[in-house]
């Protein structure tokens, strides 16, 4: 309970920052819209040539692309979150202060996570509604909202878990700025192999196996099937995806917590979590 | 050499705009009518409490900040029109010495970098860097990374940087903050040395008043954006106490002896309380010699003796708490 309270104080902190610069909220909304727009136009450009490849999704490349990009964006910001937060706090010389409380760093990360989750949820929900009602993305009329939420939550938690694994690298890393290799690699692989921008069936068969090791593949495919084809959790394919996502979720989150904890202890054995100089 | 005012500013006013809300601003008076003249070749101290406007004043004098109103010339250049020339002719060492020291370059590489930035002639660069390194005893550290030398060394490096070009004015903003006693002492020695050898005018701000007392001939004491007094340290002292006085601690003075001391016409006042003989006089040296030898002649033990001279610290506290001295 106390832990949650201190985590929420970090969430509140982010909220206060937003009050200071409300423009940053507007900017990130626009940014997300633009990003969606770019891919929307790419799919508009290519849609007439892509009917064959998208037969599994009623040949609707535009809906396929937009739904994928929206959820991928959301996941991407969660993926980089833990490392980014640690890095900023480190350079601002705050990390040591947080660490002087028993579970300060965890409260800090949790608070940040809660904030980013809510913040992104609002933005992406807005975009999704915009995409459906203005652009005219076709969503199946019998869509099962519960299934979407289940997939979405599993997806986000998995990304957070991977993010934690990446963040555990922080104290070993040579350059404590910019991107961190593990999350960077996952992000790039997901872009190429998880079928954000195109169905994985177009990937040459010899390298397609990589797709099956990336959680994004299952999450995005599941969400699309539910939204575009109207499948529910009772569908065997969806059920299989749910199970796989659950396994991914549990494994990454636990691994993330364990690894980051170990990294923290190791850092305190060595030179501490703050700057030496 | 005739006394020449290298810095001459009058009635400088500077307001900062402080953000209160999204579109609300509030003015904050950082400098409120400051006038100051500084002579060539002196070490001038700027003292004041936190937030008194010292740094702002230094920035104005260095041409980094444009005053709202008031007039002034630095090195004969007008502060409004010739600010470019002013900036090219003054040096400044900021309180955070690490600013401008690139941690990716060695000590020497850092100086080489700044030598080019300061537009030193190519042929002279090498020699000048060596000179500066030798002068500040940094020669043996020239190939070290800034991060591996002590904080005092890094401060010296910052000073070295400002010495590359022999500008006639050097601003030092809290040069010894965060240094230990030894490091601070050596910085102080170098400040004196720079002033003597290059005849550089040095303007110094510091929180350690004893430092100013040790180094500066003249000081200005600032409070809330105003200079509340600016004079030679001695004059400040004389303003606070009209007559000199001293106290001698000694045992068993008979009234007879006290009367004899009082008899001297230069002794204005003489009291003996709690084993302390307190004398006020207008001729300090004579009376000191007279009293001491007189007491010793009478075979009286002297435990301690003290001229009641205000230290700069006393003056500072008195002035900042009591306000302007008339």
């Amino acid at each position, binding site marked *: 309970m106390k832990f949650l309270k201190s985590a929420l104080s970090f969430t509140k*902190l982010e909220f206060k920052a937003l009050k200071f610069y409300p423009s940053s909220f507007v900017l990130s909304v626009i940014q997300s819209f633009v990003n969606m727009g770019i891919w929307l136009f790419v799919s508009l450009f290519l849609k007439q040539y892509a009917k064959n490849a998208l037969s599994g999704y009623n040949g609707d490349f535009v809906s396929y692309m937009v739904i994928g990009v929206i959820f991928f964006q959301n996941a991407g910001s969660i993926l980089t979150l833990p490392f980014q937060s640690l890095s900023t706090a480190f350079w601002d010389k705050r990390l040591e202060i*947080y660490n002087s409380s028993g579970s300060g760093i965890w409260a800090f990360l949790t608070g940040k996570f809660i904030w980013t989750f809510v913040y992104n949820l609002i933005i992406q929900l807005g975009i999704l509604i915009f995409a459906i009602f203005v652009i005219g993305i076709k969503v199946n009329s019998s869509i099962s909202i519960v299934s979407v939420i289940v997939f979405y939550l599993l997806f986000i938690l998995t990304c957070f878990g991977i993010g934690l694994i990446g963040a555990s690298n922080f104290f070993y890393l*040579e350059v404590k700025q910019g991107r961190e290799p593990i999350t960077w690699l996952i992000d790039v692989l997901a872009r190429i192999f998880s079928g954000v921008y195109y169905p994985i069936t177009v990937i040459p068969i010899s390298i397609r196996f990589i797709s099956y090791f990336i959680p994004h593949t299952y999450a995005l495919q599941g969400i699309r099937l539910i939204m575009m084809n109207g499948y529910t959790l009772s569908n065997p394919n969806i059920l299989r995806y749910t199970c796989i996502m659950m396994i991914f979720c549990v494994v990454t989150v636990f691994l993330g917590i364990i690894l980051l904890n170990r990294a923290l202890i190791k850092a305190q054995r*060595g030179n501490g979590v703050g*700057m030496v100089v | 050499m005739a006394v020449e005012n290298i810095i001459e500013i009058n009635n400088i006013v500077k307001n900062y705009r*402080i953000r209160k809300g999204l579109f609300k601003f509030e003015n904050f008076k950082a400098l409120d009518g400051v006038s100051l003249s500084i002579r060539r070749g002196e070490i001038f101290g700027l003292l004041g409490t936190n937030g008194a406007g010292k740094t702002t004043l230094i920035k104005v004098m260095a041409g980094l900040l444009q005053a709202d109103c008031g007039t002034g010339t630095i090195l004969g250049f007008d502060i409004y029109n010739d600010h470019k020339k002013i900036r090219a002719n003054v040096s400044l060492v900021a309180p955070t010495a690490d600013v401008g020291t690139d941690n990716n370059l060695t000590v020497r590489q850092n100086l080489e970098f700044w030598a080019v930035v300061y537009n030193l002639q190519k042929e002279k660069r090498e020699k000048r860097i060596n000179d500066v390194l030798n002068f500040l005893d940094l020669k043996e550290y020239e190939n070290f990374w800034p*991060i591996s030398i002590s*904080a005092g060394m890094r401060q010296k490096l910052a000073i070295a940087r400002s010495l590359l070009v022999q500008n006639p004015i050097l601003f030092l903003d809290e040069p010894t903050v965060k240094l230990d*006693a030894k490091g601070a002492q050596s910085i102080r020695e170098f400040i004196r040395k720079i002033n003597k050898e290059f005849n550089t005018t040095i303007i110094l701000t510091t929180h350690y008043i004893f430092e100013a007392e040790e180094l500066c001939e003249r000081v200005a004491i600032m409070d809330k954006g105003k200079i509340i007094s600016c004079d030679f340290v*001695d004059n400040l002292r004389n303003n606070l106490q009209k007559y000199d006085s001293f106290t001698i601690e000694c045992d068993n003075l008979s009234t007879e002896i006290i009367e004899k001391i009082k008899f001297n016409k230069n002794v204005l006042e003489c009291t003996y309380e709690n084993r302390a003989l307190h004398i006020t006089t207008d001729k300090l040296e004579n009376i000191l010699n007279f009293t001491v030898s007189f007491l010793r002649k009478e075979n009286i033990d002297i435990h301690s003796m003290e001229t009641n001279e205000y230290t700069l610290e006393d003056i500072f506290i008195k002035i900042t708490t009591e306000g302007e001295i008339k």
Partner: protein
Amino acid sequence: MSNYAVEAFNISKKYKGLNLDKKESGIGLWIKNISRLTSNKAEGVLALNDMNFNIQKGEIFGIYGENGAGKTTLIKILSGLLYTDTGSLSINDSTNIKEIKNSISYVSTNGWMGLEWQLTTKENLIMYGNLFGLSGKQLENECDAVLKSLDMYSNRDKYISQLSAGMRQKLTIARGILINRPILYLDEPSVSLDINSAISLREYIKHYSLSKSKSIIITSHVPDDLAICNRLMFLFKGRMVALGTKDELKIPFNNDKVLNIKCLRFEERHVAMLNGISGVKNVLNYSNEDKKNYEHIKIRIDDDKQLINKIVDLFISKNITMLSIKLSEISLQEIYEYYIGGVANGKN
């Protein structure tokens, strides 16, 4: 329950690879240099070496040393932010790192000090209180009380960017006091405070320790900060060179006193005459760098009242005008130098 707030046995700490004295081959990078410390190839650098000491409950304990002597490292270890390599440490009768963190309050005044720019002074305190598991109305009241006691109440609604460096520093100290732990660490508390604030801060700390019987540990390189301490530790290059009350530390000086003389017309040749007086240990320092041409002489002498008379007589006979003669205690820096001199001679 023991009487000790801190018990340390043989604690040592090695940093990895901070030893960059040798010019490295190739091009290094600052960030790299910090982080190279974490690689296994890195050389260990002893930051603290084999320290044994106890700090009593309710004591104000001072740690004095030059820059880089290991003060900050020691305080970080004592507050559970760093682990020791060897030795054992018990804070408030506990060796568990979590319990240690719950019984201390660590105030570091370096850098931006972890203040949040988007919050006001008071909100910063509340946020920090939340982080340490305090909340509610009680927290607010305590915030007000702490701000008042540090003379910061009028700034409670200002944002951090509007505070001067000194005020920010006071705020970090307020933060440390707020969470009300039995042990308070202050790392360089008076850096960037002006004289008046520094004096009142010292008074406050003393009062705080006495009234609430807190243990307070202060590191500093400013002797004045340590004047309020019951006991002092001298640190030099990661070694504890001395520990004790100020009087205990002065024992090697045999109650010697320092006589400070300010005078006119003193010349170099007079030094020999001073040394000739029995009881005069040595002339420590003689300088005429004063702007008014006063000479300043420091003499170490036996604790003998008559000596002053002898010196005064000598000066009168030489027609030297004395402006002041004052006995003083030996300064902290001098004591420190004596001890580190001992270490340097003894060990090298």
